[in-house]
């Protein structure tokens, strides 16, 4: 039977065997790490900044209802249409309805993980709309009909030659495989799309309760264009994105840039507080902000793991994770991969179906250390394991431990077990790793250490 767990295992096995792929990803992430460390060291105190960011997010999330009321009433006061969606299906329906009302045909999108979460592109294409991703990395994976490999670097798994071939096949336009030439191909195509698209779609990085704004962080300028030119703008916003104050951005913007990409500041950080206002030269006539719950309130109801809602989606935990570096982003089979994905996916999509992700960790804690808002990631993985075992006990595992306890507590049984083990070990060697091997899960990729002729206890008794 194919389950999410067996698919994960199959993909992980294939990817860890792909040595050039692992080398390529590791080189890229090492480059990121050295850039990030350089930027972190420019801070007068990165650790104090982390603590303040964690406390600010804590204050925001623990007063989420008040902040959402303040945010939405301020947005509405300036002519923005606010929609509330409890589920992914509702969010898709709201967005489709706006598109139908506007008689829209073409949509230009800037990068939004929330749209991956609700599988928006599939829904839009299914309903007959034409959607183009404008972020270069997202555009590349859209052409490949793939999901993003990484929440910040969607196309980091591809080499320039592969991208050149892709552009040749899909666009018939490839001067060379130089990154600059390839980028300019996308730029040329996209320019007219911004101008002719009926609707611009964006995600959001932060929402400011105090002033009623959403803030978008990007390097390419695609989101700026998406929210400048089309007549209608739609923004899909996870409800956990709120920050209490406008001034909080002074801390969060450089921290997001540093943790996310090793930059001092991302190229464009833009705050929107409404559609085109009287006296302004341009901008959308209508702006729709769709607030998405999609089981975030269930995570909120777990005070132990509530801090997972502090996440600013910087991707720092993915970049340092030894599991992510070896199995790659697509193996997870979820829009949010890496440690944060392993923590939140069981909450968002079902604990029993996704509990295997809690074991996709070495519990080294590198993720927790990298997190700019101090989410206790590796402990949450342990808590998910505990919760999964409590809600659906593994009977055989329990029985095995019970027997082990019995044997280990009784010296006579222990001696007997040792003797049997010593005698049986030569029989295991010829069948090592095959279906006859009772411990093949362990020995398939490892050697079982051979048992010594004499145990420490025997040696102690027989010494001199």
């Amino acid at each position, binding site marked *: 039977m194919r389950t999410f767990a067996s698919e994960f295992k199959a993909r992980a096995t294939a990817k860890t065997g792909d040595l050039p792929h692992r080398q390529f990803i590791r080189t890229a992430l090492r480059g990121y790490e050295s850039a990030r460390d350089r930027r972190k060291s420019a*801070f007068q*105190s*990165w650790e*104090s*900044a982390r603590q*303040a960011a964690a*406390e600010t997010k804590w*204050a925001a*999330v623990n007063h989420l*209802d008040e902040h*959402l009321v303040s945010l*939405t009433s301020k947005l509405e006061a300036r002519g923005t249409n606010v929609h509330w969606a*409890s589920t992914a299906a509702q969010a898709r329906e709201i967005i489709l309805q706006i598109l139908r009302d506007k008689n829209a045909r073409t949509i230009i999108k800037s990068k939004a993980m929330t749209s991956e979460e609700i599988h928006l592109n599939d829904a839009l294409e299914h309903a007959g709309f034409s959607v183009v991703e404008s972020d270069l*990395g997202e555009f590349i994976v859209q052409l490949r009909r793939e999901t993003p490999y990484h929440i910040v670097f*969607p*196309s*980091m798994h*591809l*080499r*320039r030659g592969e*991208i050149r071939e892709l552009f040749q096949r899909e666009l018939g336009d490839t001067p060379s495989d130089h*990154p600059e030439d390839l*980028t300019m191909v996308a730029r040329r195509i996209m320019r007219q799309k911004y101008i002719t698209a009926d609707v611009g779609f964006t995600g959001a990085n932060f929402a400011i309760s105090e*002033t009623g704004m959403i803030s978008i962080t990007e*390097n*390419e*300028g*695609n989101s*700026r*264009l998406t*929210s*400048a*030119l089309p007549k209608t703008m739609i923004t899909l916003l996870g*409800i956990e994105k709120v920050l209490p*104050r*406008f*001034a*909080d*951005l*002074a*801390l969060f913007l450089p921290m997001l840039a540093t943790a996310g990409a090793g930059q*001092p*500041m991302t*190229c*464009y*950080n833009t*705050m*929107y*507080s409404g559609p085109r*206002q009287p*006296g*302004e*030269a*341009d*901008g959308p006539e209508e702006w729709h902000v769709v607030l998405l719950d999609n089981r975030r309130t*269930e995570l*909120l*109801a777990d*005070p132990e793991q*509530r801090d997972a809602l502090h996440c600013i989606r910087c991707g720092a935990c993915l970049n340092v994770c030894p599991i992510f570096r070896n199995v790659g982003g697509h193996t997870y089979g979820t829009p949010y991969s890496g440690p944060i994905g392993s923590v939140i996916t069981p909450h968002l999509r079902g604990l029993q179906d996704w509990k295997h992700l809690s074991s996709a960790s070495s519990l080294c804690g590198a993720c927790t250390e990298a997190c700019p808002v101090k989410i206790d990631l590796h402990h949450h993985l342990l808590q998910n394991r505990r919760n999964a075992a409590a809600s659906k006990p593994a009977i055989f595992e329990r029985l095995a431990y019970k027997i082990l306890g019995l044997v280990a507590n009784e010296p006579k049984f222990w001696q007997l077990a040792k003797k049997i083990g010593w005698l049986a070990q030569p029989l295991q060697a010829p069948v090592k790793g095959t279906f006859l091997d009772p411990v093949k899960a362990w020995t398939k990729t490892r050697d079982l250490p051979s048992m010594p002729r004499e145990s420490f206890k025997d040696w102690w008794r027989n010494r001199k």
Partner: protein
Amino acid sequence: MTERENILGRIHEALQVKAPRPGLHDDAREHTDTEPPAAHAREWLPFVGAGVEDQFALFAKNCAELKADFQRLASRGELKAALVKIRDAEKWQRIASHDGELSNFACQAIGLPTLLTDQGYDVQALEKCDAGITECDALIAQTGGVVVTSRSAGGRALSILPPHHVVIARREQLVSDLPAAFAWLQEKYTPDFPSMISFITGPSRTGDIERILVLGAHGPKKLTILCV
């Protein structure tokens, strides 16, 4: 019940149990609601130097790293000369700008057909302009960034659509760091904010192909900041 009430109801119910404050351990420092945790951001963010001259030097260094062209000019005469030099070097044919004391001066100095975005404009025509000339709200020493808004810089598209964005700034517009920039914006615009405020830090860029930096992904390939 509406979905709004449903969601707010679920949040309200979930928050009946409080979550522990993050990672305090032996740190007894408490904050009250009048003093948000981020209020001390200035003490933790990168150091900006003491005086205005230090900050101009830092701004120039940051611009160089970002591959933005920054020029400090002593007079309007020098500003005019700098603009003419860029115009000739890049063989501009037409430019776009907006109404403003400095931007009007700049457009006159350049002396080319000029599209003004203030009173509505044709997007295709703006796309064909060689440069967008705008004023700004602030320059930030700490990041090498420029703050523009939909009100002070001719709308949303002028600073992002043309391939070369030229910012004309006054020297007193330099602020030390990000907290100062946010405080200044809040003081200037509360309660009637422009619908867009953008912190621009260098020309448009991407590293999506093998992490190799390419300028001009979608926005301007060049950013020039002229300060008089």
